[in-house]
């Protein structure tokens, strides 16, 4: 799973938590709302009840007052129309009732009148079942349906004037009724300040659409049947405000969550995702365009970008270097190969040429000697001398050729290194030179052991000692061989008390076939020091000369301790 996705998921989880918190708040709001509504409903219920009771009260009290009255008992006996006109019919106008009923104890109706809007309508009887209940309870209040509508009926038993407490047996039954018509409902509306409706079916207490509370009052018949409901509907501003507020808070909470989410996504994408994409893109493609984009990065990514850029630069430099090195290496190898073959050719050439030169030289030498012997009687002294000169030049050439051969042998022929006791080897070298008796040779005691090719090293010492002997011009020749420990190498010196060499010739003496004296004066090939130098240098050492005319000569050379 990519980091980007992980982050998005954690973001979603955060959003979900935020959302559930928001739902929790909503729930609490709803509970508060319900509490508010319930108390509103209770309040409104009592308002409705109070209004209905207030409306009923006057009628109820009239019924109460009329029914302990001797005149009413008298009227049940006489049925005096005039009295009824004066006292009962006036009830309709003075108390705005809609029905008056008077029954004898034998349930004979004495007065029966029902009116609506001052018009007589067809009167209806009070149901017979009510009377036993009224007889027992003295009062009754119930609702009844008629073709005109629902009536609220109050009933009471009739008693003499002196029996206000109604302890005597009842003498008759008196009822007053009020039709729940529009004027009744209108009055109720005035009292309650809401909308009053009469419905056969009860509606819900709270109307969500209209921000109003509806409470209802049941209209019960004498036998406890619900004939309908009086409903009071009132609008409340607090509900509107509350709804609006919760709506606003819902929207603003959702909005806030969305804003946070979007903000986070954008910030994440801008601050993290885009820089990371650029970095990975640059690392992948390595193209200069992508790398240029790295420079636009900010904050921590700027550092990373710079690091990557420097890494790229290093890599490039490294690649260039590697390229250069490869080329150099290839060139070097080619050169070495060329040099190698040239060297080999040269060595073979030197060997073959020298070798093949020797045969004719020998022939010249031999034949000149034969002539010297075979024709000695025919040759005069001049001729013999010339033949001798010829022979001496043959010898010189022979020496030169041998010199070339032994010089080329130094590199041409490999010699295995072995541990050499120099005390022995230096002795052998001196023995081979066989210096005359007038020479004193001092050699350091306890010369070290070195690792070297034995023949080569012998050649070195032999040549140096031989030179010291050969060129010495003193009566007593002195030669000193000395050794110094220089840490990782040994330094050996061969000093003599000979004529010495001028400094300007120091280089020349090591060059091939270079001699400081004329050949005829002093027979020398001039190859010895050249070979010594080559042997020493081939083994990682150096050689140099210290000398001044008349002060003797010291040759110092070094040998590495470990080869």
């Amino acid at each position: 799973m990519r980091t980007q996705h992980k982050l998005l998921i954690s973001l979603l989880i955060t959003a979900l938590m935020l959302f559930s918190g928001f739902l929790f708040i909503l729930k609490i709001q709803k509970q508060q709302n319900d509490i508010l509504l319930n108390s509103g409903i209770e309040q409104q219920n009592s308002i409705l009840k109070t209004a209905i009771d207030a409306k009923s009260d006057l009628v109820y009290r009239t019924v109460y007052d009329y029914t302990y009255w001797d005149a009413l008992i008298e009227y049940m006996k006489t049925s005096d129309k005039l009295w009824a006109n004066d006292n009962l019919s006036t009830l309709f106008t003075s108390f705005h009732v809609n029905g008056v009923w008077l029954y004898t104890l034998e349930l004979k109706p004495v007065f029966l009148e029902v009116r609506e809007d001052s018009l007589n309508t067809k009167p209806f009887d009070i149901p017979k079942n009510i009377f036993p209940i009224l007889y027992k309870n003295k009062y009754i209040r119930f609702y009844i349906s008629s073709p005109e509508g629902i009536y609220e009926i109050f009933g009471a038993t009739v008693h003499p004037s002196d029996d206000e407490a109604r302890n005597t047996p009842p003498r008759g039954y008196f009822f007053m009724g009020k039709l729940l018509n529009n004027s009744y409902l209108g009055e109720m509306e005035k009292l309650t300040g809401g909308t009053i409706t009469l419905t056969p079916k009860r509606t819900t207490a709270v109307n969500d659409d209209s921000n109003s509370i509806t409470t209802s009052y049941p209209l019960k018949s004498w036998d406890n049947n619900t004939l309908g409901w009086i409903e009071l509907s009132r609008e409340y501003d607090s509900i509107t405000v509350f709804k609006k507020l919760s709506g606003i808070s819902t929207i603003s909470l959702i909005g806030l969550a969305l804003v946070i989410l979007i903000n986070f996504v954008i910030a994440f994408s801008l601050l993290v995702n885009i820089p990371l994409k650029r970095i990975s893109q640059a690392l992948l493609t390595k193209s200069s365009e992508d790398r240029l984009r790295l420079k636009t990065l900010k904050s921590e990514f700027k550092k990373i970008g710079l690091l990557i850029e420097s890494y790229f630069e290093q890599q490039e430099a490294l690649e260039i270097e590697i390229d250069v090195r490869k080329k150099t290496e290839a060139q070097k190898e080619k050169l070495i190969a060329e040099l190698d073959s040239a060297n080999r050719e040269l060595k073979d050439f030197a060997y073959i040429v020298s070798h093949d030169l020797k045969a004719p030289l020998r022939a010249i030498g031999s034949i000149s000697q034969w002539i010297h012997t075979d024709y000695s009687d025919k040759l005069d002294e001049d001729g013999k001398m010339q033949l001798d000169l010829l022979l001496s030049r043959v010898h010189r050439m022979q020496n030169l050729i041998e010199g070339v051969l032994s010089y080329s042998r130094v590199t041409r022929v490999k010699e295995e290194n072995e541990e050499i006791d120099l005390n022995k080897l230096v002795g052998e070298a001196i023995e081979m030179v066989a210096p005359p008796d007038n020479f004193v040779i001092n050699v350091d005691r306890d010369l070290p052991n070195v690792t070297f090719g034995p023949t080569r090293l012998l050649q070195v010492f032999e040549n140096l000692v031989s030179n010291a002997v050969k060129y010495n011009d003193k009566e007593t020749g002195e030669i000193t061989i000395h050794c110094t420990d220089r840490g990782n190498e040994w330094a050996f010196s061969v000093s003599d008390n000979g004529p010495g060499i001028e400094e300007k010739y120091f280089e020349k003496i090591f060059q091939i076939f270079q001699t400081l004296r004329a050949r005829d004066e002093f027979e020398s090939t001039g190859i010895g020091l050249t070979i010594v130098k080559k042997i020493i240098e081939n083994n990682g050492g150096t050689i140099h000369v210290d000398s001044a005319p008349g002060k003797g000569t010291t040759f110092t050379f070094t040998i590495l301790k470990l080869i």
Partner: protein
Amino acid sequence: MIKNKTILLVEDDMIDAMTVKRALKELNVINPVDTVENGEEALEFLRDSKNELPGIILLDLNMPRMNGIEFLGIAKKDEKLKHIPVIILTTSLEEIDRIDTFSLGVAGYMVKPVDYKQFVEVIKAIKLYWSLSELPC
């Protein structure tokens, strides 16, 4: 020198051959000398039944067609020839040549000097060696 035994000289240089013969004559060596110019001719000569096998072979190393070392390599494997003593007469001072030829069982290794008198000394040494050394016949 051992009586009547011939000497086989394997030498391509005419003057060198002359030098050897002259030196032998000077030292009063009367044994006949057969001269061939290279290894191939030497093998041909030695394998020809008409020719008597020589008492000693004087062998040059640097020769055309078949050099001394190659000749030795073949001759020393030949049952009939391997007992004939071979003395190298060469201009080569090379160590490697000395080692190679002695490995192939030569009786001696002589370097040809430029000086004729020294050459005679060399031949004298060979004569001495041949006279004193017991050889298979």
